[in-house]
């Protein structure tokens, strides 16, 4: 099991969600965050006060997936979130020790798999 954390552009969120849903990745958490990578400074002026906005608005996605889903999830995010400009974001893949589904008490892979999908599905489309 892996925890995938992706930081993406807010305007690419609808595209990413659409692609993930098409890949049957339906369980995720999205948070509005501010961050800074290697992008150019964004300069704004408010009544004569000129400021450099160091932090850019981003969306952070957290997705816990079973091993068979890692590759397709990462690929979906990479493809849908890319504009080719600096500031497209990052995808981090972390090991995940345990998952508990609060409603049923299921543990591990059963807890990760959305309702209605076979948890023992091995093939990656």
């Amino acid at each position, binding site marked *: 099991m892996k925890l995938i954390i992706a930081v993406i552009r807010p305007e690419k969120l609808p595209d990413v969600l659409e692609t993930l849903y098409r890949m049957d990745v339906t369980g995720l958490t999205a948070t509005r965050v501010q961050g800074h990578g290697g992008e150019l400074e964004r*300069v704004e002026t408010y009544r004569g006060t000129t400021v*450099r906005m160091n*932090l850019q608005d981003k969306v952070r996605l957290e997705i816990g997936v079973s091993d068979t889903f890692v590759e397709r999830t990462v690929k979906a995010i990479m493809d849908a979130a890319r504009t080719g400009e600096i500031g497209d974001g990052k995808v981090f893949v972390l090991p995940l020790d345990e998952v508990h589904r609060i409603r049923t008490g299921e543990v591990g892979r059963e807890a990760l798999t959305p309702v209605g999908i076979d948890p023992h599905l091995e093939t990656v489309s």
Partner: protein
Amino acid sequence: MNAADTTWMLISTALVLLMTPALAFFYGGLVRAKNALNTMMMSFVSLGCVGVTWFLLGYTLAFGTGSALFGDLSMVLLRGVGLDVAPGSTIPKLLFMAYQGTFAIITAALISGAVVERMRFMAYAAFITLWSLVVYCPVAHWVWGGGWLSRMGALDFAGGTVVHITAATAALVAATFIGPRKDYARQAILPHNVPFTILGAGLLWFGWFGFNGGSALAANGQAVLAFVNTLVAPAATLLVWTALDMTRTGKVTAAGSATGIVVGLVAITPAAGFVSPISALAIGAIAAVPSHFAILYRSRTRLDDSLDVVAAHGLGGTVGALLTGVFADKAWGAPVNGLLFGNPRQFLIQAVAVAATIAFTAGVTLALLKLVAAFGSLKATSNEEGLGLDFSQHGEEAYASGDGALLLLSEALPRSAAQLSPSKGGLL
């Protein structure tokens, strides 16, 4: 000069001026957060660019004696527009000029609803400034300045054709010519602040008492009638609109209610001083239906009239102008009766006025858009749309947190800043 009339017209002028900031809130709430300032600025800028051109040139083009089609240059730079009483009224010429100026300002600002979230700001400002001179001023002359529509007997109390049909026709042409937003019909585009929209609708209603009540140009019975009709008609529209909402979704929507109020205000505008309050109730109620269904239909088409200027102002204005020809009543001070009171010809005259206004506005607006497009792109780039027009056009954000922002001294602007500043689309 009559002191009571002058007082009422001073107040009315201020009330109508308030409608432009009100429109900024109405429209500003309906767009996404990243375009909120730009959308509000599209209304606000009209206070400057259309206001100044009105004082310099627009007023004489609209209200100079001229011919049946155009005014003249007799009052250019406000020459002869002084504190003496305007002929046929009891208020100073200068006040009449200022009052009419607030109409020119809001009419141009209304167009912005069709092109928000994508039209480049400088191109927009140039467009509405010229539009006001070549479309609004001639049509105002036709109807109020002694031009051919008034000679034909067309009734337009406070600007159903002059204000709402011209703005909506221009909106339709501009939305079609500029094209849809890149996300239109691809992603959900939701209003970011419906309370702003409700605030705007409320302030529009408040200002509209000056718009309609002031169009009597005196503190008299006709002003009272127009004022009360401005209260009655939108109330009826609101009720019918919410009923239509209920039958479709089972819920009354707030954004829909705000829109319904504006449609009612638009519809009663041409009729306000000519019809009985019960007729106003009928006009308000009837006007809700076509606009309500037009909004539902429009959102399924490729026409990205983003904030439904055509459905609200075009259909509302047309219904109001035609129904003025139905409900006009000499017993309530109209110069002629309408269809309902035995004068079917008035309905035809109203229809001709509407058709002529639409045809003239569409043609001239299209030519003007092509002219402005020759000096620079009308549409923001796809990248600028993605970043939002607040940042790309104004270098500000409506809801900047300021977290992590570094103060820059003006002489130390980083060179890289230029790389992220919006690309120039040409001269404008």
